[in-house]
Each structure stands twice: as structure tokens, then as C-alpha cells.
């Protein structure tokens, strides 16, 4: 056992910490208040090569590991979970399926643009009638000469409207559940793909989510990812490592909340002394610190297992479940430490609470994580 970061990982941590502190921190409140998609930050991250962390060198990516990716997402989420969410979906579920399952031709056509940030990626699985029960999605892909015609609607799609690539799951054998699902690479400029208006939501303001309508959307055979019927497996594999990213996002939220709470507790005086000297405040700080540290270790463990080519489904689900529940508790506790000021949108405390809630829902609700974990427990 050696739980130290490699020199390369330490370097990326320094780089992204610096980026997050310099660029993301000063923009975070404005992004939340305006709800505008932070194209400027995405561009700056791209300039540093941070949009292709998991893409191999050969396709102009950084060729780094999942642990480095987790570090990146955490550091951005420390200040802005919505920006982290955009970059996470792009770099993880939006890009990794091509790295893992793409043909050489697909990799050459898509990965360099994604790695350089010239195109953003989105992952389109969820439908109005198929959320947790994704295997019963209704979007169809029917054969059409040398390609397919996609018809149906997706909902809750992060980066919708901004993305140049959508990985779309559709059924090539309607009615046969998971076995009939196939994955497709659909360009953002495809005339058959239409994006609905952005949803207003509780938090993660700035990150766009919308419906994506596929109306006789023609996709070439060359843009089918994997074989027919392999789509559900591709989606589940994407979500396995995607959960490491969500877990890292939650760790960033938790650490940010903890740091602010600690600083405030030392400064804020009541009854003639800093509230940090009150034992109940100390207890909150201790509990927040323990949960944050445990969450980070769990995230890193899942990432390290994935990087070592070992099974990591259970660990990734546990990390996602633990970290996002911890982030919800910690952001609420940190807000409480700020008292009435925590409730004001002038401080980032309320925003973190609103943002943390999403983490318990997407990439598999925490109830679904428990289903996944229980299944793994029965299996072992």
C-alpha cells in the first residue's frame, strides 16, 4: 500500500488548483446568479489541455489516469460545481466511451476535437419515461440504407445546446430492453437533432440541461459506437467511471464548504469570542472533516482500481453514494455555521447546498447506487 500521489498527479493537482483559484473562483457567483453557460472558463480549461485528460496522447489528449481526472473535477468543484459538472460530463461519460469502444476511425474523427475543447460532449441516456429504469428507453434507431434513423426524446441532457457531440442511446430492437440498445455518435450540427429550451433548476446554474429531440435524425453506420445491442453495456461502463467524477465533484463541494466554514468560524465573534471556540461548532467541523477525507479516499480508491484495470463497479458506486450524501450533509452544516448569513446568496454556502442536491440524483440516484451495491454484495 502506498497512498501517495505520483509526481505527475501532484503536478496536475497543482495546475488545476491554480486554474481553479485563479479563474473559476472569481467567476463562480456570477455564473450561479446569471445562469449563463461559462464558455470563457471552458475555453481557458481547454487551453490548459484539461478537456482531454482521459484521451490518449495519440489523439491529442493528455493521456492521464482517472485519479488525475478526479483531482481535476474536485478542484474545479471546490469553487463551482456547475462548471465542474460541465467539464466532468464532457471528459468522462461524453468522451470516454469513444476511447474505450470507438473504432480507430471514430477516435481519429472525434477525439482530437473533444480533447482540444473544440467540441463539447454530451451523454444522452435519460428519457421522460425512462430515468432510473434506463433499459426501457423508447428512442428508436431504425435501419436506413447505410445508416440509421433515430426518433425519440431525451431529457435532462447536460451540455445540451452547447455540445458538438451527443452520445445517444437508442433501441435497434424496440421491446427487447437492454439487449436492444445501441449507442450512436450524433453531431451537434445534425439537422435531425433539436434541443429544447434550457430547464430552470434548483442549482448547478450555468450548466445547461435540456431536452434533446431526435426527429428522423440520420446517423451514418460509421457513427454507431460498438455493435448493435452493445449500447447498454457501453452506457453502464461509462457510468461506472462517470461515478468517480460525480464523487469527486461532491468532494470538491464538501471541501469548499468546510474551508469556508472553518475560516468563518475563526473570524465570527459572538459572546465575546470566535464561534470556533464553541464545542458544537468544533464538533461540526470535525465531522465535516472526517466525512470529506473518507469521501476523498473512497473516490481515489475507485479511481486507482480503475486505473489498475481491476473491477471497480462496487467501489465507484460506494464512493458516489457516500460522497454525495456527505456533500449534502456537509454543505448544510457549513451553511448552519454561517447562521443567517449562510442563507443569503451573497455567500456561496446556499449555492453549495443547491448544487449538492443534484449529485445525489444524477448518474444513478443514490437509491439506485444502493441497488447496484446490494447486487454486487449478493454476487460476492
Amino acid at each position, binding site marked *: 500500500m502506498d*497512498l501517495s500521489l*505520483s509526481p505527475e498527479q501532484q503536478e496536475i493537482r497543482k495546475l488545476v488548483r491554480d486554474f481553479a483559484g485563479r479563474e473559476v473562483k472569481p467567476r463562480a457567483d456570477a455564473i450561479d446568479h446569471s445562469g449563463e453557460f461559462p464558455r470563457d472558463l471552458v475555453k481557458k480549461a481547454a487551453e490548459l489541455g484539461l478537456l482531454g485528460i482521459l484521451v490518449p496522447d495519440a489523439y491529442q489528449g493528455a493521456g492521464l489516469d482517472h485519479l488525475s481526472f478526479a483531482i481535476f473535477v474536485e478542484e474545479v468543484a471546490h469553487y463551482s460545481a456547475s462548471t465542474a459538472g460541465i467539464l466532468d460530463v464532457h471528459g468522462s461519460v461524453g468522451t470516454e466511451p469513444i476511447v474505450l469502444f470507438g473504432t480507430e476511425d471514430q477516435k481519429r474523427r472525434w477525439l482530437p476535437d473533444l480533447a482540444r475543447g473544440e467540441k463539447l460532449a454530451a451523454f444522452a441516456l435519460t428519457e421522460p419515461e425512462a430515468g432510473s429504469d434506463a433499459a426501457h428507453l423508447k428512442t428508436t434507431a431504425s435501419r436506413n440504407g447505410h445508416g440509421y434513423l433515430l426518433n425519440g426524446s431525451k431529457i435532462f441532457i447536460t451540455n445540451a445546446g452547447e455540445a458538438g457531440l451527443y452520445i445517444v442511446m437508442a433501441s435497434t430492437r424496440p421491446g427487447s430492453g437492454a439487449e436492444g440498445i445501441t449507442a450512436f455518435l450524433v453531431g451537434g450540427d445534425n439537422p435531425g437533432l433539436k434541443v429544447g429550451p434550457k430547464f430552470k433548476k434548483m442549482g448547478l446554474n450555468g450548466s445547461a440541461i435540456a431536452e434533446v429531440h431526435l426527429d428522423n435524425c440520420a446517423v451514418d453506420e460509421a457513427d454507431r459506437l460498438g455493435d448493435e445491442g452493445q449500447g447498454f453495456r457501453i452506457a453502464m461502463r461509462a457510468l461506472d467511471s462517470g461515478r468517480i467524477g460525480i464523487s469527486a465533484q461532491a468532494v470538491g463541494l464538501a471541501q469548499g464548504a468546510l474551508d469556508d466554514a472553518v475560516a468563518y468560524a475563526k473570524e465570527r465573534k459572538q459572546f465575546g469570542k470566535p464561534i470556533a471556540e464553541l464545542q458544537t461548532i468544533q464538533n461540526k467541523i470535525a465531522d465535516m472533516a472526517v466525512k470529506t477525507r473518507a469521501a476523498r479516499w473512497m473516490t481515489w480508491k475507485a479511481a*486507482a482500481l480503475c486505473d489498475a484495470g481491476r473491477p471497480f463497479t462496487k467501489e465507484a458506486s460506494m464512493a458516489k453514494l457516500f460522497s454525495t450524501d456527505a456533500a449534502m450533509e456537509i454543505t448544510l452544516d457549513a451553511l448552519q455555521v454561517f447562521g443567517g448569513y449562510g442563507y443569503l446568496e451573497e455567500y456561496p454556502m446556499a449555492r453549495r447546498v443547491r448544487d449538492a442536491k443534484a449529485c445525489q440524483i444524477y448518474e444513478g440516484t443514490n437509491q439506485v447506487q444502493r441497488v447496484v451495491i446490494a447486487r454486487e454484495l449478493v454476487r460476492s
Partner: protein
Amino acid sequence: MDFGLTEEQQQIREMVHDLCLERVDPRAAEIDESGEFPWDIKELFAKHDILAIPFTPDYGGVSGRALTLLVAIEEISKFCVTSSLILSVQSLGSLPIWLAGTDDQKRKYLPPLARGEQLAAFALTESGSGSDAGGMRTRVIKRGDTYVMNGSKTFITGGSVADTIVVFARTDQDGDTPARDISAFIVEKAMPGFKVGKLEKKMGIRGSPTAQLFFEDVKIPSANRLGKEGEGFKLAMQVLDHSRPGIAAQALGIAEGAFELARRYAGERRQFGKPIMEFQGIQFMLADMATQIEAARVLTYAAGDALDRDQPAVTAGSSMAKLFASDTAMRVTTDAVQILGGYGYLRDFPAERMMRDAKITQIYEGTNEIQRLVIAREVLKEKA
């Protein structure tokens, strides 16, 4: 980053596991019922060099690595927490010697402990000073080349069976300086004036003797003082930094043992025509137990890894592991009793014993309230 154990650690884990499954598991209920110290298990552990794990080879041991010790404690605790304490306290009682002893002191005291011929104990707590250990009253007066000790200690694990006991006592005479002027001494059980008082009756870990110790004009040679005069309190805190991950490992083992029991039971027990495992209420309890255990495991191993890599600030990590793992053990054992239903409440199954045993891990080596204070202090300091 590598979360794997070395081959040697893996082998030790398997050896301890197999031995405990065969020899300790069948004794665990009896040990609890009788409340007697399991000398047979102590001999078994000595024979298989399990008691040598805390010690480096130059002092007759087989490892001395923190993580290896944690793994061994964890394995024993899956079966019998009382038995795990034989190893834990061998480490706890020898840590002050290991950390502050001179080479002479180490050569004299450590090898018989490593061989398991002798047992160690650690005596800090007094009836009037528990969490506030700095308020202790046991005193020594220096007379020439000896110290004369008077006072008493309470709650000393293994105090009645130990040969070598590290005792903390004040060297100041006015007693107004709480944490300063405390020094540590190696007391041998044969020293005149040393007496063992009553053994406590307890909720759990019932075969682990918890003793009152009395010191009446015990003459201790200066050569038995550990470190400098007045540095005892600092030493005690340093020992706890090293030993708290051991309590975390104990708690982790209890939780794992209880979880395994509950998982097996849920697969076998049928109600409403199917195994109770098929009810989502049970599945989610098991998923939460497993997730909490995984979190406790990473914190515990990370604390061991930090000690083995000589990291500069280990205090917070050790306390976090102890706090989180012991709270996890309490929750998981309580849930395990719940999953076994009425049978969980019976002595026929080990679930209720595990729950009684888990409770102590939230109390000793600093209650969890004290851990929170320690952690908060470290976190507030970090972010200065």
C-alpha cells in the same frame, strides 16, 4: 497510488484469519460468557508469532509495520474482540518503550513481549481523570537513584495479567500544572508495593480484564523512566496517535464480522415466501452497512499507511479513523442485530455480543467526543 496489501501482509491476513476461524471462533461465546482471560488464545497467538507483529526483527519481532498490525487486529476482531485486545494491548503497552525507550530499555523489555512470554499494559487513566488525563494524581518522588510511586490507576486493560506496565505519574509536587510534569515509567509486576485491585464487570469485551492498579511506595529505578522527566504527557499523546488506528482496525473487524453474519442470514432466512435479502428495505440496509465499512476501511488503512510512511502530521488522520470506524461499528452491529430480528437478540448468535463489544470502541483511547476535539483543533490549525 496503490491500495493493495503487500504479499507478506496478505499472507499474515490469511494466516490470522484461518487460525482464528479454527481456534478463536469456537471459543468466542464461551470467553464472553465466562468473562475469563483466555490464556489459551494468548498461548496460541504467542506460538504463531502473532504477538510478535508489533515488533521489528531487531527486537525479536516479525514486522513492526503499522499496517500489518492493523490487518491482524482487524482479522481477529471479526471473530472475537476480547482476543484482539491481547494483541492490541501488547502493542499499546510497548509503544511508549518503542517510541521513547533507550536501546537498553528496548533490549530488556521488548523481546519477551515479542515472544509472547510476557504481557504489556498501558496505565494512564485514573478514577478522577479520564478524558482529562493531564489531571492525574499518581505521583513519584525522586529519592537518589529511584522514584517512589504512590497512587492508583483504573480501567487498565490487561492490568491483572501484565508483566510490564507503562505507568504515567506526576513528577511535580504541587500538582497545579495539569499536563506538564508528567513522566512515564516502566513498572514490573514483581515490584514490591504494586497491587492489582478488583476487575470490572463490563457490558462487552468481557474476557479482557479491566483492572484497578495500586501503587504503594513502589520503588522504580531511574533506569526505568521513559524519556525525560516531564515529557510523559507528550509521549502519551504520541502513543495514542499510533494506537488509535488499532482501535479503528478493531472496530472495522467487528463491523465486517457483523456484516458478514447479517448478509449470510439475509440470504438464508425466508419470510413471505422468499429470502429476506430480496426485500429492498434489507438490501438498502446492507448496502449502507457495506458503504460505511468501506469508508471506515480507507480511513483506517490510510492512517496506517501515513504512520508507515513517516508522514509529519498523523494526529488528525489517526483520530478520524478511530472516530469514524467506531461509530460505524456501533451502527453496523446494531443493524446486524436488526436484520437477524428476534434471533439477533439471543445469545445463540454472535450479533448481540458484537454490538456490546462495539460500544467500547467509541469510549477507550479517547472518547469520540475527545476525538472530535482533537480533529477540530488540527483542522483549525491547518487552515490558519
